[in-house]
C-alpha cells in the first residue's frame, strides 16, 4: 500500500431536497498519495465537487454523510466535531475555490485578507514575520510587486490575479494537503495556465499534496500524477494518469477520452497535432460568394475615459456555406462582433453586410425580414429558453412570429425539427427544465433552424456543456450544415473546437483581429505571438 495522506473509504453523501434524498456519492473509496497531484475528473453531476466539499467539510446544509470514513494523516476526521475540525481547515488542509470573484471579500484589502488567514490559524508568527511571509508567498505565485498589491481591493484585480491570491491564501499555513476545486474553469485559458503554474510552484516549494478537481482531461493529464474518474457518484476508474489515459479499463473513461480530441495514447496533443490527426476528408473549396462581410467596424461602449473599445477596425469575410470561427478570450470583443452582425448593436463606424444587405442602414421592418435568414444559438441553453413554454412553443416561436403556414403545418414542422436535432417527438410537450443541458441546446438549435435561415450565428454553442455532450452537439451541427448548406458564424474561446469544425478562422484580441485565414494557416502556420500562445495551451 502506498503512503496515502488522505484515504476515503465507502463515503456516501446525500442531499435532502424537500422530502427526497438524492445520493451524490455512493460508497466512494479513494486514496490520495502523499506529495503528488491527484486529479478528480468527471462531468457535471458526477459528484466531484461534493467529494471535495465533504473532505473539507463545506457541504451545504442539506448535505449529509450517512456512511463512510475520511482518514486524513491516519485519523478519521469525520469523528471530529465541527469545532474540533475547524483547526484542520487552513492549517492542515487548504482550499482553492472555483469562483475567484465571489471568494474574496470586496470590502477589505488584499493584505487584510491574507493576514486574516494567519490570524484564523492562530499563527505563532510575529506581525513582522507574517508580513515577510505574505510578501514571499505573493512573489511565489507570480506577483512582481507584492507591496502595493497589499493595499488594493479585490475589484481592482483581474480574475486571474484574484485566483492567484486565493492560491497564496490556501498555501499560507503550509498545509499538507490543498484541494483545488476547478481552479481555472472561470478563467481564460492563458490566465488559467498562470494559476496552475502558481499552484505547482507553491506545491513543490512547500512539499504539499494537491487534489485537483476538474472536468478538463487535457488539464488533468498535464498537471496530475494520479487520476480518479468519477461517474454519477461512483468511482469508475483510478490510477496513475499515464496508465489510465493510455489504457482505460472502464467504458466511461473511454467515452470521456474519445470526446476529447486532445488526449490520445496517454498524452496531450497540441491543438495542431490534434488538428492534423483529424480526418476531415477532402474539404470542399470555399465559395467565393460572401455571406457576411465586415469592413473597418468600430464599436465603443460608454464615452470618455470610462468607455471601452469593443471593436477596433474589424474586417472579415465569411464565405457562404462554410464555418467561420471567431476566437478570443473574454473581453476580446468577439460577442460584440456577433451582436453587430445580428443587428442587436449598431456599429459606430464601418460597414456590416449580411447576405448582401447593409445591416446599419436597415429600418426595423427590413431588419426583421433579414432575421428570417440569420438566426442565432446562444451560449447557455439554461438561459436562452423561456422556462414557462413547452418545446412546441419554443421551437415554433419563429414560425408563429413570422406567421409561417397553418397551425397544423407549424406543428408538423416542429415535429420535423425535433427529429432533425434527434429528440423524440413526444418531447414537444415538455418544458426546458425537464431536459439536460445538451438536450436544451438541441432545442435552441431547432428553434434557430425553424424558419430555414441561411446563416446561423453560434455564440459559444457548447461551452456550457459537458465534454461528451459537446462532441455530440458539434457533430449534430456539422450534419445539419452539410444537409442544409448553412453558413455558420461561430464565436468561441476554444481553439480545439475551431480545429474540429471551422474552415476559416479569425483570432481576436482587445477589439482587433490579430490573425485571420484558413484553419490550416492559422492552426498550423500561425504568425501572431498571441495566436501561438493560444495554440500552445
Amino acid at each position, binding site marked *: 500500500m502506498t503512503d496515502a495522506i488522505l484515504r476515503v473509504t465507502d463515503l456516501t453523501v446525500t442531499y435532502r*431536497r*424537500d*422530502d*427526497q434524498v*438524492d445520493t451524490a456519492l455512493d460508497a466512494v473509496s479513494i486514496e490520495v498519495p502523499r506529495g503528488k497531484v491527484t486529479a478528480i475528473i468527471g*462531468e*457535471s*453531476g*458526477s459528484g466531484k465537487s461534493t467529494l471535495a466539499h465533504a473532505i473539507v467539510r463545506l457541504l451545504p446544509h442539506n448535505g449529509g454523510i450517512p456512511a463512510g470514513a475520511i482518514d486524513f494523516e491516519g485519523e478519521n476526521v469525520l469523528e471530529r466535531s465541527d469545532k474540533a475540525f475547524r483547526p484542520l481547515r487552513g492549517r492542515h488542509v487548504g482550499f482553492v475555490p472555483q469562483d475567484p470573484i465571489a471568494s474574496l471579500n470586496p470590502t477589505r484589502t488584499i493584505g487584510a485578507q491574507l493576514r486574516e488567514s494567519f490570524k484564523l490559524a492562530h499563527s505563532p508568527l510575529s506581525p513582522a514575520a507574517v508580513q515577510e511571509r505574505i510578501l514571499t508567498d505573493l512573489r511565489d505565485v507570480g506577483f512582481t510587486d507584492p507591496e502595493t498589491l497589499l493595499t488594493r481591493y479585490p475589484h481592482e484585480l483581474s480574475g486571474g490575479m484574484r485566483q492567484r491570491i486565493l492560491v497564496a491564501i490556501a498555501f499560507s499555513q503550509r498545509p499538507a494537503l490543498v484541494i483545488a476545486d476547478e481552479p481555472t474553469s472561470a478563467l481564460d485559458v492563458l490566465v488559467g495556465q498562470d494559476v496552475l503554474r502558481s499552484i505547482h510552484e507553491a506545491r513543490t516549494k512547500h512539499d504539499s499534496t494537491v487534489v485537483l478537481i476538474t472536468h478538463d482531461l487535457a488539464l488533468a493529464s498535464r498537471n496530475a500524477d494520479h487520476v480518479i474518474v468519477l461517474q*454519477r457518484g461512483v468511482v469508475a476508474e483510478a490510477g496513475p494518469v499515464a496508465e489510465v489515459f493510455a489504457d482505460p479499463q472502464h467504458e466511461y473513461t473511454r467515452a470521456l477520452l474519445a470526446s476529447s480530441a486532445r488526449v490520445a495514447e496517454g498524452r496531450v496533443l497540441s491543438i495542431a497535432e490534434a488538428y492534423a490527426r483529424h480526418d476531415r476528408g477532402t474539404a470542399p473549396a470555399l465559395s467565393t460568394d460572401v455571406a457576411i462581410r465586415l469592413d473597418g467596424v468600430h464599436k465603443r461602449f460608454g464615452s470618455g475615459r470610462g468607455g471601452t473599445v469593443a471593436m477596433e477596425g474589424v474586417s472579415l469575410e465569411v464565405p457562404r456555406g462554410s464555418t467561420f470561427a471567431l476566437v478570443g478570450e473574454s473581453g476580446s470583443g468577439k460577442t460584440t462582433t456577433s451582436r453587430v452582425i*445580428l443587428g*442587436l448593436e449598431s456599429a459606430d463606424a464601418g460597414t456590416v453586410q449580411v447576405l448582401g444587405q447593409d445591416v446599419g442602414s436597415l429600418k426595423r421592418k427590413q431588419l*426583421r425580414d433579414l*432575421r*428570417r435568414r440569420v*438566426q*442565432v444559438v*446562444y451560449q*447557455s441553453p*439554461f*438561459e*436562452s*429558453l*423561456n*422556462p*414557462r*413554454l413547452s418545446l412546441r*412553443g419554443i421551437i415554433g*416561436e*419563429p414560425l*408563429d*412570429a*413570422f406567421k409561417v403556414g397553418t397551425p397544423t403545418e407549424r406543428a408538423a414542422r416542429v415535429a420535423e425539427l425535433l427529429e432533425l436535432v434527434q429528440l423524440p417527438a413526444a418531447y414537444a410537450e415538455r418544458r*426546458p*427544465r*425537464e*431536459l*439536460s*443541458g*445538451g*438536450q*436544451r441546446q438541441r432545442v*435552441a438549435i431547432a*428553434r434557430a433552424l*425553424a*424558419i430555414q435561415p441561411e446563416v446561423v450565428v453560434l455564440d459559444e454553442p457548447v461551452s456550457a*456543456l*459537458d465534454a461528451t455532450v459537446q462532441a455530440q452537439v458539434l457533430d449534430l451541427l456539422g450534419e445539419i450544415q452539410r444537409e442544409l448548406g448553412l453558413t455558420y458564424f461561430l464565436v468561441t474561446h476554444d481553439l480545439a473546437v475551431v480545429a474540429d469544425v471551422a474552415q476559416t478562422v479569425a483570432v481576436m484580441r482587445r477589439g482587433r483581429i490579430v490573425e485571420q485565414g484558413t484553419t490550416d494557416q492559422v492552426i498550423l502556420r500561425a504568425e501572431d505571438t498571441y495566436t501561438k500562445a493560444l495554440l500552445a495551451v
Partner: protein
Amino acid sequence: MTDTLLPDTPVGVGAAKTGSGPVAAAVARAAEPPRRRRRRLKEIHVHLLLLAALVVIAVFPTLVATHDPFELDGIPFTSPNGTHFFGTDEIGRDLYSRVVHGLQISLFSATLAVVVALVLGSVVGILSGLRPGSWLDRVLGVGTEAVMAVPAVLLALAVITTYGRGAFVAAIAIGLGEATGFARLVRGVVIQSSTFTFVEAARTCGAGPIRTITRHIVPNVFHPVLSYTALQFGLALLAIGSLSYLGFGEAPPSPEWGVLIAGGQKYLAHAWWVAIIPGLALTAVVVLLNRIAYLLQEDH
C-alpha cells in the same frame, strides 16, 4: 416602503438554471412534487377557498344575513346570543347582518382600488421598464415619485374633498396612491426580465414587441405582481376602512366596517362587541389576504 417589496431574487429562470447533471433525478423531481410543496399548495387552496366564500357572501349577503341591516328589530345593546349572533348596536340593529352587508362594501371598494392600482401601475411600469432611461421612463419616474411624496391618506383626502365622499371615490383615491407601488414593482421586473437571454432570443426569432411582452415578459412578471396584489388588497381594505372611520368614506347608516367601528367606539366600555367585532372581521380578512400574498410568494 414599496421599494423593499421588490423581489430580490431573479424571476423565472432561477430554478431552471441549476445543473444539467443527474437528469433522471431532476425529471423525477419535476414529475412528482415533494410533500412540502404539496402542503404549501394545499394551504393556498384552503386560503383561496376561504376568499372565494367571502366573495360569494359579498355578492349575495342575504344568503347568510339573518336580519335587514337597517331595520331596528332588537333591543339596543343586546349582547351576542342565538338570534343576534354578534349582538345589536346602539339602536337595536342586528350587528351580524350589518357586518355581512358591510363586507360587500369593503370588498368591492377594495377590489376597485386594487384594479385601478394594478391597471394604472402596470401600464406605467411596462412603459417605463421597456426602455429604462428613456425620456418616457424619466417623466413617468418623476410623476411616480411626486405621487409617492404625498402621504397616501392626504392624497385620498384631496381627491375626496374634490369629488365628494363615498366608498367609490375613496376606492379610486386609494387606488391612485397604490398605483405607484405597482408601477415601481412592474418596472423592476420588466427590466429584469428584459435581460433574460430568452427575451433577446425571441427578438432575434422575429417576435415583435407586443409578442415579446405578452409571451415572454408578462408571464414572468405575473407571479410577483400577483403576490403584491394580494398584499395591496389587504392594505386597500384597511385604508378604505380608515377613511370611513375618519368620516371621509361611507357615512352612517351605511354598514361599512370603518363606519361600524367609529360608531361603536363610544360604547366600548359597556358594549364592546359593537366596535370590536367589525374590527376583528376587518383584521381577519386582511390577515387572510396577507397570508395568501405570502404563500404565493413562497410558491414562486
